[in-house]
């Protein structure tokens, strides 16, 4: 009795078979016709069945899957929870969900209602679905070796307090999140206690808080993702051995926005990324042993903001161009290296023609230090006063940290 908006096709099937209900009708692999709600269809399957759903609009919530089946939607079947509870709950291994549209899980402050919730499962595949207007999009809890691929996930929320995450992972292992498009959620992708997982090729745009949010998640990789115009960029916190490669972070603008925020991260690599037009390109707080190499850091307000409690981080072969400020820090202690980067503000020369400047470059300008102390001083940026201050400081360094220096600044950018 639940589906109320049958599509033309299902109506056609109903007429053909003269089944005396107003439910949509669907066919399983053996050619048997199943009827009524999605839940009843699922109940009629046996493990390892494939359930095909041909179109249809199902007003249904809390659909429970407790056995390993494959559900494939054709002609865009829509499952709508109508703002009550969740849409699909998976509590079994080896479930595949493909080609469905799932919408309308309830916004709640008490429970984390999701479009698809996966609990205590292994080898679940969520492929090419559309999830819109859900509180949480795909929610994986305590699951292993799952795949979330090619989905379009759109939240449509405007406030952080009443929106959930696009893809939310809690206590998972070996998850693949690839080629999803996620927008208008709180965090596009959220990982907490997630290990050995891959986040590849996703497009996270216009989310309210972070494009990607890592918490306590070790041994993960994210690569080839695009994070554009999210509230605050990407945050990686309290994690170890994270690899961030070839991503694009752009247009994260705002008083507390950044391309990447690294907080208490150790032994990680950030390579080959594009950081374009962010208020802060990379912000490092209390990080150790991070290799930051071959990134293109361009058009940012602050290219790198690094706190004095960061140790043994290594910046190498990065290209710093057209940033308002290259590096800013909050103390005189510097335990990181900045050798062999390209800085467009470098004015030195290369007499021995080895491609590296003969005069060291100090990327922290006194004006950056002044602005970090008196933010209103940004009003004097690019004034003659600023020019004089920077020149004087360059001649006789007194305020800026002397050890924050590139001994071998590159004469030409190493990445384009």
């Amino acid at each position, binding site marked *: 009795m639940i589906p109320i908006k049958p599509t033309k096709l299902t109506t056609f099937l109903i007429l053909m078979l003269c089944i005396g209900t107003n439910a949509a009708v669907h066919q399983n692999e053996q050619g048997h016709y199943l009827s009524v709600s999605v839940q009843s269809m699922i109940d009629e399957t046996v493990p390892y069945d494939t359930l095909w759903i041909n179109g249809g609009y199902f007003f249904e919530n809390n659909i429970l899957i407790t056995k390993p089946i494959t559900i494939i939607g054709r002609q865009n079947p829509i499952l709508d929870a109508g703002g009550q509870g969740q849409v699909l709950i998976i509590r079994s291994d080896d479930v595949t969900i493909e080609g469905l549209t799932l919408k309308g899980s309830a916004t709640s402050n008490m429970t984390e209602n999701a479009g698809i919730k996966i609990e205590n499962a292994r080898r679940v595949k969520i492929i090419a679905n559309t999830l819109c207007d859900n509180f949480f999009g795909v929610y994986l809890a305590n699951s292993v070796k799952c795949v979330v691929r090619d989905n379009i996930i759109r939240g449509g929320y405007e406030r952080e307090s009443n929106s959930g995450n696009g893809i939310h992972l809690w206590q998972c292992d070996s998850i693949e999140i690839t080629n999803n498009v996620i927008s208008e959620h709180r965090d596009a992708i959220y990982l907490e206690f997630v290990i050995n997982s891959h986040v590849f090729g996703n497009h996270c745009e216009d989310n309210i808080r972070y494009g990607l949010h890592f918490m306590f998640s070790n041994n993960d990789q994210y690569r080839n993702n695009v994070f554009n115009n999210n509230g605050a960029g990407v945050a990686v916190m309290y994690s170890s051995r994270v690899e961030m490669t070839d991503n694009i972070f752009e247009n994260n603008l705002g008083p507390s926005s950044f391309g990447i925020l690294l907080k208490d991260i150790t032994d990680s690599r950030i390579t080959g990324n594009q950081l374009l037009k962010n208020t802060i390109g990379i912000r490092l707080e209390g990080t150790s042993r991070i290799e930051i190499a071959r990134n293109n850091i361009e058009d940012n307000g602050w290219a790198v903001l690094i706190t004095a409690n960061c140790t043994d981080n290594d910046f190498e072969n990065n290209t710093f161009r057209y940033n308002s400020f290259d590096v800013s820090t909050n103390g005189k202690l510097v335990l990181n290296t900045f050798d062999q980067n390209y800085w467009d503000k470098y004015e030195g020369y290369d007499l021995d023609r080895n491609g590296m400047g003969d005069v060291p470059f100090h990327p922290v300008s006194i004006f950056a230090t002044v602005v970090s102390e008196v933010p209103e001083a940004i009003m004097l940026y*690019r004034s003659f006063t600023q020019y004089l201050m920077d020149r004087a400081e360059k001649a006789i360094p007194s305020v800026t940290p002397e050890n924050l220096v590139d001994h071998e600044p590159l004469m030409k950018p190493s990445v384009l």
Partner: protein
Amino acid sequence: MQVTIKIARYTLLDLLYNRVTLFYTLFLMGVSLVVFNLDDNVSKGILSLVNIILLIVPLVSIVFATIHMYNSAEFIELLLARPIQRTRILFGHFVGISTALSTAFLIGIGLPVLLYAPSATGITLIAAGWMLTLSFVSIAMLASVSTRDKARGIGIAILLWFLFTMIYDGFVLWILFAFNDYPLEKPVLVLTALNPVDLARIVLLLRIDISAFMGYTGALYKDYFGTAKGMIITTSVLLCWIIIPMLLAVRRFKSRDI
């Protein structure tokens, strides 16, 4: 009105025959072409031009206009001997000088910018530079009527340029540090408006360094200057910087012994 235009035309012709205007045009054009051709990236060229516009353009405008006023002292005396209103004489000179310098600026910087960087930033740059030219000619009029001594007049002009481009910013920085414990966003906004060079600079920075301006308190400036309302306010404040010194100069010139 006709008299004003006549005087303006005469002044303009006088200045166009004068080599200085030509050299100024060629200088600006040379600099613009060099900065645009040195680097592939247009925004870097724009950045270099910002410095020219904030320092050189005001300096040339104020010094050149002042010197010209003193050089035409005899011509002004001759005009005063005839039944012409003093207001018209001064306005005639103002219009003549500012037309000459505006032409030089618009050809020297305006044309290359339109050719190489025809963006909103480029147009803002041209508009800001042009407004600065006019306001510094206006300030020069005030400087030149304030004293009869040529050396002292030019001294005042250069001092005013120093004040607006350097001393004032140092003063603002001092205020920022001295009153660091207080919320300074609003006072700083007012302080900015009190200096045409600062105002022009902020308007340009909101185009060039928007990433940095979105952080911390910069967002406030963006909300204030970046919107259409802010644009109108900025333009009217810069217009005040053209009109008010000129009106003061007229008042002084009217009651002055020649």
